């Protein structure tokens, strides 16, 4: 029988380890899947009693792709509009746990638009590292329709089909260290 009373991590405040964590995205483009990631992000997990809160922010200007012109396009008003909306944000409103499986309901904000979003994944059991620090890991993923957030750029192929898919997977490998 599953339980939702088990906490996602031991009580306390957990800060994101930015060196080992990763936040990336994948989207179908032309004949394959285009992948990129963000270099700068932050996150916090707080477990207090029976409540757990998770929130994170990502700096749009830190988008990491192989071509500087593409990076500039992604930051332009055609895509994320970094000048007007410098951060992506996720705030969890409900976290439930079933064994190692995690279900997080919250609000995702992209380009100034906030929408309810469900994120799923797994949690790794907490451990103590070689330096005596307590750690817990979360692997999370969600798929969103970018056009619902106003990220609507596209260009048609000669066939008339769009070259860029609307659905984008956002994937996060999060290492937390107890504060």
């Amino acid at each position, binding site marked *: 029988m599953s339980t939702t009373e088990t906490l996602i991590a031991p009580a306390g405040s957990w800060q994101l380890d930015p060196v080992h964590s990763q936040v990336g995205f994948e989207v179908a483009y032309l004949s394959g899947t285009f992948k990129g990631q963000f270099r700068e992000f932050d996150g916090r997990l707080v477990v207090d009693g029976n409540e757990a809160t998770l929130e994170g922010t990502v700096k749009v200007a830190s988008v990491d792709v192989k071509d*500087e*012109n593409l*990076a*500039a*396009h992604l*930051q*332009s*008003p*055609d895509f994320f509009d970094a*000048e*007007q909306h*410098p951060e992506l944000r996720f705030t969890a409103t409900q976290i439930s746990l079933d064994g190692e499986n995690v279900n997080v309901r919250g609000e995702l904000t992209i380009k100034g638009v906030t929408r309810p979003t469900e994120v799923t994944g797994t949690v790794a059991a907490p451990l103590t590292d070689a330096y005596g620090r307590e750690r817990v890991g979360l692997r999370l993923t969600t798929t969103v329709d970018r056009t619902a957030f106003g990220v609507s*750029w596209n260009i048609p192929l000669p066939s008339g089909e769009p070259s860029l898919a609307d659905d984008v997977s956002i994937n996060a490998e999060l290492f937390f260290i107890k504060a």
Partner: protein
Amino acid sequence: MRVLAIPGSLRNDSYNAKLLYNSVELFPDDAVLDLWGGLKDVPPYDEDDDGGDAPAAVAELRDAIARADAVLIATPEYNHSIPGQLKNAFDWVSRPIATNPMRNKPVAVIGASTSSFGGVWAQAELRKVLGALGARVLDVELAVPHAHERFDQFGRLTDQNFTEQLAAVVDSIVLAVAERTARLELTA
């Protein structure tokens, strides 16, 4: 506030230049409108020439854009698209793409045409080009059809409806500049 106005036509009696002249009195008193008349002097884009010192007309356009808080472009429609010389000018402006002066710049596209559609296809294509440069393309539209019947002997618009639409475009530019200025001051 400084606005760079660019007519996309080269001829002396251009309807699109007249449209831009009509916008002057609609801006706030403290706004400065620079009407750029160097389009004809821009040479064809050749990457072999795009290194070191840019051609004079290109350098002038890049500087004028960089100094402006917003850009207002009035484009004719040639063969259902943008005039080649106007596209060519923005091909120069766009290099290097990641740092070109149109990036994040508020820009409005309007136009006049002797056709029944007022140059809407050229305007749509120019907005696409400006989006590719990373400009902040304002969601405004003004298409003046049958342009040969819309201006009096002094170059003034004769239809109050178009004057009001032009005023709405100007208001959008003023608002976009104010919002961007406030946003940049906050993050400075």
